[in-house]
Each structure stands twice: as structure tokens, then as C-alpha cells.
């Protein structure tokens, strides 16, 4: 050991207002994806009830919006993005509380990237690719 120590230079804090505040973006995305998941579950509940529960079968004629909604494949891609993002970001928060250290920017971009890949894969699956 030669006794030298690597010093990290202070980061540039002169352009704070120009950059995206990652914390705001990640928090809002986590909330929106959570809401999206809940909404999906509610719609899924209604759709399955209409299809399989005899008591709700009369709704088949009234719920004309349901087949249109269910046939939109992009909704499933959005749902998958939402589930993957919400899960991974939630895990990141739990692990951070348990002692792991994450760079907030890299972890957010990585989680968004993985979630987008899952969404694209879902779109590709419906496209037959």
C-alpha cells in the first residue's frame, strides 16, 4: 500500500433544475403502476365473472365494452410493464431498507429497462413473433 487515497470529486450541482428528478419520476411511476395493477384486477374480476359466473351472465349483453377491452393486446403489454416495474422497484426499496446500497439513477433506469423489455416481449408474443 502506498498510502494514497482516491478522492471522489464533488459532482456538478450547477444544473440541478435541468435534470429529471429521479426520485419524483420513480415515485410517480410506482404509484401509477400500482393503480394500473389494481384497475386491471378489477376489470379482470368483472370480465371473469361475466364469463363464468351464472349470476352475472346477463351482463354479457350489457357489457359490450368488455370484449373490445379484452382484445386490446397493448393493455397486456402495459400491464406487464406495470407489474414488473412495481415489483422490482418495491424490491429495491425493501433491499435498501435491509442494507443494500443502490445508485438511485442506475437502479431506476435498469428497472425501467427491464420492465420495457417485458412489455415489448408481450407485444411480440401477441404479434406472433
Amino acid at each position, binding site marked *: 500500500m502506498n498510502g494514497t487515497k482516491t478522492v471522489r470529486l464533488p459532482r456538478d*450541482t450547477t444544473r*440541478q*433544475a435541468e435534470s429529471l428528478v*429521479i426520485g419524483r419520476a420513480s*415515485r410517480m411511476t410506482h404509484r401509477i403502476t400500482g393503480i394500473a395493477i389494481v384497475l386491471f384486477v378489477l376489470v379482470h374480476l368483472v370480465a371473469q365473472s361475466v364469463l363464468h359466473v351464472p349470476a352475472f351472465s346477463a351482463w354479457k349483453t350489457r357489457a359490450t365494452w368488455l370484449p373490445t377491452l379484452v382484445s386490446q393486446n397493448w393493455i397486456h403489454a402495459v400491464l406487464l410493464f406495470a407489474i414488473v416495474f412495481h415489483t422490482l422497484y418495491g424490491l429495491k426499496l425493501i433491499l435498501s431498507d435491509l*442494507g443494500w*446500497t443502490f445508485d*438511485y439513477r442506475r437502479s431506476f433506469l435498469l428497472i425501467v429497462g427491464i420492465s420495457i423489455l417485458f412489455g415489448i416481449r408481450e407485444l411480440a408474443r401477441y404479434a406472433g413473433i
Partner: protein
Amino acid sequence: MNNAEIITVDLRRFDPSSGEAPYYQRFEIPAQPNMRVLDVIRAIYETKCADLSFQYACRIGRCGTCSVKVNGVPVLACQERAKPRMRIEPLSPFPVVRDLVIDRGEVESRYVDLNLVPARGSPRGEDIERITPVAAEQICNLDRCISCMICVSACPAVEERAFDGPAFMLKLRQLSLHPANGQDRVEQAMEGGLMECFGCDACTQLCPTDLSPAQAIRELRRVKVFGGSQ
């Protein structure tokens, strides 16, 4: 930015004695090289609006006095580079005295309430409390905080929940590391809403002294949940 450019600023004005609601006043200032937001505000004061109220002191990012919000982001006016279009507002969620001047009385009284000195639980005995080099480095590192309140302004949990703010949690963490500290800083942090933090790291991103209040909060939380020494 070259000399031919104009900086357009929408500056929030508020005079409580006038009885009027806050409003935005537009100013246009010729741009200078390397201009900072504080330079723009001073140019407005000196050439356009002599009754503008604003705060600054050191001008070198060491005192934390000049904190404002630029385009919705809390920053140090003396450090932040001027942009061609800016919306400048006083730092939220603090009470506004006038224009860009905020009342820091509540901040100061909160710091006083926390009793941020290494308070022993009992009178000092014969043995002095030794500080290891590692602890000393950690304590001195956290002492870089300039109490600018940018982290508190940026914190979503401060807006939505009963949370004092990252700045206070950071100071409590600093004191918890001190070997002569006899007060239960974790319980003080709990009273200040330690568990309300979202873990979003907005405070870490915007801290002008490159500290991580979010990390200090996580460390205090771990002590609270899993026990162990402070």
C-alpha cells in the same frame, strides 16, 4: 449562453401587506457568460425591480441562504446556472415573508428542539469517550450539511405526511454516531416521522453538498428495526 441571448424569468411576487394574492411577474435580462440564478435575481433587483426581496450571503454555496425553486426544482441560486426560461419561486413548503424570502423560524426552532449536541446521559467519568478515525470521518462528513432545506423542499413525504424532513434526520444520524452522545437519537427520529420516508432519493440527488440524507434515514431505520448500536 452568449451575450446576445435574453433570459426570461417569471418571478413569483408576494407582498403580504398589500393583501393581494401571489402573482408571477415577467422580467427579461441580458444573458452573461456563466451566469447563475443569483446573478439573474440581482440583475433584476438592480435594473428592473428595486422592491424585490431575496436572500443571499456567501455566494459560494456554503451558507444555504439563497435556496429557491427554479422550474419547480429546489436549488441554491448562487450555484445553479441560469437558463433561458426560468420560473423562480420561494422555497416550499416554508412560509413566505415576501417575494423570495422565506421564514426559517420553524426550521431553527426544530433544530433547537432536537438538542443537536453530544449530550451525555450521565456526568463524564474518568475515561474519555474515544472517537475512532472511521467514526470521526463519518461525523465530519455529515457536518457538511449547510441546512439549505433543499432536501426538505424536494421531499414528497414532507408534503404528504407528518415528516420533519431529511435534513433533520441527517443531523440526528450524525449525533447518533458520536461516542459522547447519550440521547436516544433514533427515538427522536421516530418522533420526527422516520418511517414516513419513501426512499425515493430525491434529497440525495438535489443535495448541493453531495450528502445522502436518504442513506442516513435508512441507517437510522435499520437501528430501529433490527436493533444494534446507534
